[in-house]
């Protein structure tokens, strides 16, 4: 056991950090800078980070879920307003289905409450996530011999709570069609592993959002003065930030394990690891992001302060593939003490 990042993983983390520090939105106003956002999108494309889960020559993904999580954490920290989660999950699902990779911009469609992958019989309510620039989304199609991966075309994306990522509806009246080239229905274990990847990546994004929100608030607490002192010198403020730091560190540890588990553990164990991590990170992220707003005081409640952008991003990451409720249910199912969702 050695859970430290390898030199290659550290280099990957550093290049993701550099890209988002240079091209991500440093202020709320910069969210409207389309030229900047398209440069960030181009940088992510050029780096090949969306293709980490496409098949290499032996059919396995180019990189493990740990590399995906390393990138996701930095993109979350820097509020990257370019697609990553959606294309990554689509590439992984496509690879598992045996269908060839696509050059089109593709994401995945989830059920209405975002807690799991959409199935074609409810695709009227399906929502494609992280859909900026995506023309199509993958979902599941039920068939006599099992579930296959299908595709729907998408309407133009819109922004929801998250100001950095878009959602999109399937085009009205369009039917989901099975991906060509699928040799077989998708085994249940593949669906579980895909879900564990989605949980691990959303956890990593949440850890990134927590780091960003905490750094922002800590900096502000050192600068803002009241009663003639920096507010960060008051224990009341210090303890809020210390608790946020602890929540972030615990999240980091359990999220790291969930990312490793995706490719290393049996499918059900990987899913259990992802579910536990997601429940933990979702609760922590709300605490940390709300703390960031509170430490900013009145400023934290204005649109111009980035604190709410972190909170909004965290709200969305939390809902994608389920928040506390759905994932505690998955945890219960794993341990045989209930769980109405079942493990999947």
């Amino acid at each position: 056991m050695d859970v430290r990042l390898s030199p290659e993983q550290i280099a990957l983390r550093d290049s993701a950090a550099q890209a988002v520090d240079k091209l991500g939105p440093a202020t709320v106003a910069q969210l409207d800078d389309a030229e900047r956002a398209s440069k960030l999108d181009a940088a992510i494309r050029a780096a090949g980070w969306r293709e980490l889960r496409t098949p290499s020559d032996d059919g396995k993904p180019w990189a493990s879920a740990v590399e995906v999580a390393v990138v996701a954490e930095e993109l979350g920290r820097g509020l990257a307003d370019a697609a990553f989660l959606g294309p990554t999950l689509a590439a992984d699902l496509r690879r598992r289905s045996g269908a060839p990779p696509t050059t089109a911009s593709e994401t995945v469609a989830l059920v209405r409450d975002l807690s799991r992958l959409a199935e074609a019989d409810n695709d009227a309510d399906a929502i494609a996530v992280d859909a900026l620039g995506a023309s199509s989304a993958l979902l599941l199609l039920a068939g006599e011999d099992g579930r296959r991966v299908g595709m729907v075309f998408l309407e133009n994306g819109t922004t929801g709570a998250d100001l950095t990522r878009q959602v999109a509806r399937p085009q009205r009246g369009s039917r989901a069609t099975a991906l060509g080239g699928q040799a077989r229905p998708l085994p249940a274990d593949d669906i579980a592993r895909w879900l564990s990847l989605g949980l691990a990546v959303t956890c990593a994004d949440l850890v990134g959002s927590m780091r960003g929100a905490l750094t922002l608030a800590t900096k502000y607490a050192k600068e803002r003065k009241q009663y003639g002192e920096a507010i960060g010198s008051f224990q009341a403020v210090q303890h809020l930030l210390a608790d946020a730091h602890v929540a972030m560190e615990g999240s980091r540890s359990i999220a790291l394990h969930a990312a490793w588990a995706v490719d290393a553990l049996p499918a059900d164990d990987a899913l259990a690891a992802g579910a536990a991590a997601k429940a933990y990170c979702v609760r922590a992220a709300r605490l940390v992001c709300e703390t960031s707003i509170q430490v900013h005081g009145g400023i934290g409640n204005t649109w111009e302060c980035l604190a709410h952008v972190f909170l909004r991003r965290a709200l969305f990451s939390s809902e994608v593939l389920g928040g506390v409720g759905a994932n505690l249910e998955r945890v219960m199912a794993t341990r045989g003490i209930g769980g109405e969702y079942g493990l999947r």
Partner: protein
Amino acid sequence: MDFADSPEEAAFRLRLREWLADNDPGLPPSSTTDEYWAGQAAWHQTLYDAGFFGLSWPTAIGGQGLPSVYDVILDEELIAAAAPPRPSVGYLVRGLLEHGSDDVHRRFLPGLVSGRDRWCQGFSEPDAGSDLASLRTKAVLDGSEYVINGHKVWTSYSDAADWCLVLARTDPDVPKHRGISAFAVPMRQSAITQRPLKMINGITREFGEVIFDGARVDATNMIGEPGEGWRLAMTVVSHEREPGELGYVARYGKLVNDLVDHVKAAPAAFGAEQRRDLAWSIVEAEMLRCHVSRRLSDRLDGIDHGPEGSVDKLLMTEVEQAVGHAAISVGGSAPGGGDDTWLRVYLYSRAQSVMGGTSQIQRNLIANRILELPTK
């Protein structure tokens, strides 16, 4: 980045698993009943004799000289075997290793590591709790010995201890942090009285207070230099805050597994809220296991004694108290059949945010030393 065992680790795990199958003493989890402490010395020596204690400590003091992450394997296998957690003496070992001379290492560490000698820690006093540096116990040189007078409290396991690591003031004329020295004081002498304190969950063999009334200790039993006591205390408490050093991953894993078994034995008796509380305790215990794996991996290239222990302490406290909440939720306050195990687990959990430095002190340390917020 790999949580999986190397071939050597896997072989060790298998050997440990086979040994545990025949050598589980069947004790309850620590701090739940007096039964655990009564059997702990024997358990310590059994683990040690089989080569499964002090895994990451130097072989010269009786450790196994293995990489730090082997402690994770030990904790995981103790959980899987439903065996009791490993004895928590790592923080004393770290303090003596870091600050003691070769002579101190040779004289004291083998007995501490093997479990042959029992130790307690005389730091806190009635008027020196969070403000530990204001302690008033005095040590005065008299020939080749120091004479110690003072009152220590919250001294865990004082009733069974052969030795006490005592902080005492040796120089009243310098600022308070600089006038403190540390000693290994033999407990078996008539000038020392110890009294047990009954905790809120009813156990009496964990907490104690100790009166030193002219107790004598050889000057060669000073650990470190005169005035080094505060730095030694900081080394000790920084590791006393680490679940990896304490072996508490196994403690929580065992408690959670017992709770899960309890619910599965009569599933109809438990509702949604109880299952949810239990699910949170599962998640929390899993978090701590992952966190300790991370921390001990960070030590593969060498140990440090930094402020991260405060983060670990707060995470450990969060887990202990989540498990406590699950225990009272599942066990209830009016258990039938007279078995109040879960009530005792819950009540004990309240101490975790106080002992080893309160949660409030940990937050101060994190704010100042990690977040680098200004001090007033």
